[in-house]
């Protein structure tokens, strides 16, 4: 049995503490009874209760959810169809390179560039239609744009690993194109689609930059709300809100892990 050098263990523990201390501090101060400062004044859940009476926060939570759900549904459908289109047809090498490049663009470029491009594009579209005023629609469009790429990449890797034997067998048994897709390809792809969808959902919840650039006054999401509030000064209520968001992230991550490991 190889041993771990004590220095490695110490450094690893230090790194873990480095990652988790700030987050734990947020959780600890979210149950601290004092409103100002960081001195411990006893345990309370008041800040959590107050969250549920705060109209602005409830509204932001609702916006976050609508944004994540709508963009995830659209991007999962578009991304899955795109992945099938890319992998299951005899495209020439040049077409494949082009498709690959477009698909990787949102993954590699810094998100602030995509955000800037969207601001300018929506600004110009606004001359045509008032639909593109900064707001939820713009945010949904922005989120779908980067989500599609991630969903398509995840689903495509599943398609590649599936191989072609099963679909060939279905064709040999006289399956029509529609039947093949409905009863063979899509069911086989389902784990990939769910994984892609969960990734898209988490990305949407996690996103700040795209939302920040495309949001309007009516479409504040939780990350935007926390950002604005923190710049005015941190309060226990913000800690409570952040702790809840953290917990939801933990549940989502652990759920996704379980799901992808079971398959």
């Amino acid at each position, binding site marked *: 049995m190889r041993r*771990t050098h004590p*220095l490695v*263990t110490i*450094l*690893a523990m230090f*790194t*873990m503490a*480095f*990652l988790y201390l*700030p*987050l734990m*501090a*947020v959780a600890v*101060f979210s149950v601290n009874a004092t409103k100002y*400062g*960081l001195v411990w004044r006893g345990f309370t859940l008041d800040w959590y209760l107050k969250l549920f009476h705060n109209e602005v926060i409830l509204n932001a939570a609702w916006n976050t959810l609508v944004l994540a759900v709508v963009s995830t549904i659209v991007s999962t459908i*578009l*991304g899955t169809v*795109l992945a099938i*289109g890319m992998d*299951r*047809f*005899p*495209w020439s090498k040049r077409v494949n390179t082009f*498709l690959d490049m477009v*698909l990787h*663009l*949102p993954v*590699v*470029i*810094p998100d*602030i*560039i995509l955000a*800037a*491009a*969207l601001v*300018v*594009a929506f600004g*110009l579209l606004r001359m045509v239609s008032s639909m593109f005023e900064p707001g939820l629609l713009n945010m949904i*469009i922005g989120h*779908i744009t980067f989500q*599609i790429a991630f969903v398509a990449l995840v689903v495509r890797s599943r398609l590649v690993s599936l191989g072609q034997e099963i*679909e*060939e067998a279905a*064709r040999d048994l006289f399956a029509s*194109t529609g039947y093949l897709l409905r009863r063979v390809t899509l069911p086989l792809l389902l784990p990939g689609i769910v994984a892609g969808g969960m990734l898209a959902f*988490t990305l949407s919840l996690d996103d*700040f930059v795209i939302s920040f*650039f495309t949001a309007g006054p009516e479409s504040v999401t939780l*990350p935007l709300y*926390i950002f604005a509030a923190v*710049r005015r000064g*941190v309060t226990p209520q*913000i800690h409570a809100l*952040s702790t809840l*968001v*953290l917990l939801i*992230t933990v549940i989502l*991550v652990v759920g996704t*892990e379980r799901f992808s490991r079971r398959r």
Partner: protein
Amino acid sequence: MKRKMLVWYGELTTTRSLIKRGLLFLSPGMLWLLAFLVLPGLVLVVVSFASRGAYGELVWEFNLENYKRLAGFGIFGWSADYLVIVWRSVWVALVTTVLSVVLSYPLCFFIARRPERTRYLWLTMVIIPFWTNMVIRTYAWFLILAPELPFARLAAMLGLVSPGSPLYPSAFAVYLGMVSMFLPFVALPLYSSVERLDWELVEAAQDLYASRLRVFTQAILPQTLPGLSVGVILTFVPAMGMFVVPDLLGGAKYMLVGNLIQQQFGASRDWAFGAAISMGLMVLTMFSLYLYRRKSKGAEVLV
């Protein structure tokens, strides 16, 4: 006309009908990406040559003014202000990447040597911050660096800051925030390489009396290079464009390119200049990706 027949996934069909059907599958997603990614990107390029009107509107007069301004040629003569910000962004991204790599190696070795049951637990512990909202992870440092806590007190005792003041905004706080933000981006890809590491090679190097440094550079580094290079590029590129961390932890003292871009689209309302800075960042991104591709080809030879 001769129709080319072929068997594709067990179906006897023609290339033409396959391509027709293929386009049907490709078009929704690709049209979306062309409409909201490629086209806006091209518009951004065009806008970067336009000018700003008196009220912050876009004026379609094309010139190189924005790029000249970015290079420092303003109405008051040459100043390096913007170039300093660009250089600082590259520097911060570089330091962030190096520190993240240095911290990731021991962490990955540690996790790879846990028993299988607890290994996934540790790994999940690294994945959770990866997915946690960056605003929360950034502002969380406010608490750690607050004047009431030991870290700020220690710094005050050493005379680094005045007593009773927090350790932010400062360059130090930006580095803390950046490293904690991007560390999982290095650690996760690196781990996938460390997990597959062939320890017999490492032991062979040790048996042959290689120094610790040589064991690392010649037995460990080449084997973990695939994961490491993915982690480095996943950190370096987004770190250059980061604006939440410097905005919250650096304040006006430590602006990066991301803040500069955000300023043009926010308070300054100078989209054309913002577009030009974005193009600058894009060039830096492309250059690092190019270096990465060249380097990773070299890496394959090395392994």
